[in-house]
């Protein structure tokens, strides 16, 4: 009982914070809204019983990605033209399309409710032990590939910034 209330609460918070993202002016505030969303989602995951994913959500998303983002925001002068004029020229069409999109999704949901009842199902597969064993045994290829992906990302970042190029006079 309390679980569904909390679930609804966290889900609602996530949505509200996401909506706020679209309205706030200062990028720092937008970043904080996103952090709020992510934390709410972590809460949702925890309530669903998939603690591993919840922890990863906080550690990786909030702890690494958002920190990096905030760092970049603090580094830059964000009060430029995009500060005064928040919205692009496509505000109205974008909003309209979004409404249409949500309408279709609502229509689909209405006709065919997915079988997942909230909160049910097991987090059995999401136990840390089982997860680690499977990840390193069955899905070892994926594991290696993401390592490669991360290395590529680092190299790309260095290349973008042209680190290592001798400064010309």
């Amino acid at each position: 009982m309390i679980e569904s209330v909390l679930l609804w609460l966290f889900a609602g918070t996530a949505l509200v914070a996401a909506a706020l993202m679209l309205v706030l002016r200062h990028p720092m505030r937008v970043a904080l809204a996103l952090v709020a969303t992510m934390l709410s989602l972590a809460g949702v995951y925890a309530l669903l019983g998939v603690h591993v994913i919840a922890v990863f959500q906080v550690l990786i998303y909030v702890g690494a990605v958002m920190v990096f983002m905030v760092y970049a925001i603090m580094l830059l002068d964000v009060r430029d033209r995009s500060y005064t004029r928040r919205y692009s020229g496509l505000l109205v069409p974008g909003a309209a399309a979004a409404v249409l999109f949500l309408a279709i999704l609502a229509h689909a949901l209405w006709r065919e409710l997915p079988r997942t009842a909230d909160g049910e199902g097991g987090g059995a597969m999401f136990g840390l032990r089982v997860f680690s064993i499977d990840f390193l045994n069955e899905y070892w290829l994926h594991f290696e590939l993401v390592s490669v992906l991360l290395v590529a990302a680092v190299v790309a970042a260095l290349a973008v910034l042209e680190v290592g190029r001798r400064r010309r006079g």
Partner: protein
Amino acid sequence: MLIATSWGLFALGLVGVIVRRNVLIMLMCMELMLNGVNLSLVAFAQQTATSAGAVLVFLVFVVATAEIAIAIPIVLLLARGKRGGLDLGAYADLKG
């Protein structure tokens, strides 16, 4: 309900990309989209008996990280450049 939430997050993220001008905010909206996707993955993965769902969620994390790792330096370069700064409405380099 969770599915509805995930879709809502995704839609908000996509609209945010369309609507906001600042490139950093657009990046953050893209993260929001990924989060929405993650939520729906988790919601569906609970039903299966394999751990494929968990692995996929983890992979999404990794991809998001890698993406940010590259995107931020690009944004930094943009900010350093003379024209437009962080306002994506001012760039039309892909025209034509």
